[in-house]
């Protein structure tokens, strides 16, 4: 029963673990469980890969369209609030 509870709890907190949002006791609880649970051990690796990969989705080669200020230009100079 305790193991099943630990399992469900661990599955729900894999992202918290990777994010560093777990306190020391909670972290130890997940560590202990993942050591003996292949599913949670793999889930933890999967979550680490997920976060690592998403953090490296590229931002290069994407430029804002040259038209991005066109409507501001059309609004013209002067008091910007007066245009609201």
């Amino acid at each position: 029963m305790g193991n099943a509870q630990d399992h469900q709890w661990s599955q729900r907190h894999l992202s918290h673990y990777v994010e560093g949002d777990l306190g020391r006791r909670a972290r130890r609880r997940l560590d202990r469980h993942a050591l003996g649970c292949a599913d949670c051990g793999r889930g933890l690796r999967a979550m680490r890969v997920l976060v690592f990969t998403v953090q490296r989705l590229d931002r290069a080669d994407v430029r804002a369209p040259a038209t991005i200020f066109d409507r501001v230009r059309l609004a013209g100079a002067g008091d910007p609030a007066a245009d609201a």
Partner: protein
Amino acid sequence: MTETEAALLARAKAGDVDAFEELSGAYADRLYLLLLRLLGDPDEAGEVAQEVMVRAWRGISRFQGRSSYFTWLYRIAVNEANRALARREREPASVPLGPRELDRPTSPADDPARQAESSELRQALARALAMLAPPLRTAIVLRDVEGLSTQEAAEIAGVGQAAFKSRLHQARLQVRAAIGDDALTGVNG
């Protein structure tokens, strides 16, 4: 805020469009990419980006500097993206991150890096992100893709930090479920 940015802001508040363009232009590419990630459509992202700039221009006299100008501008962008999404009929979003945009070299030094080299995995991640509900997508894009701090990302998303974290964790769990642990850890392929 840098001295230059403060000077540009003062001029923009006084109605100088050139100053506004220089001030906001520094964030234009990043802002457009954010909109592309949230909306998934280059044309729509371009249109919304123009709307963001118009709203920023109209509202700049009310900008008090309690947050950074970047945070303020991003907040407008997220709000406008949400408005655009609300206007859309419910349909699966197109993939916001094409393979070319994901093609970034990574270090082969550790296990996650080796997995990150898989373009298949990157494309699967992009598809999974596109399928998330907008608030969850916004959370994972701001925190993980954009690399903003929780405080800044929560401020831009317009929620408290606890609520933001809850969305972030939920988003990651949904992405993990959509892709599967085997694909993420490289088992069977």
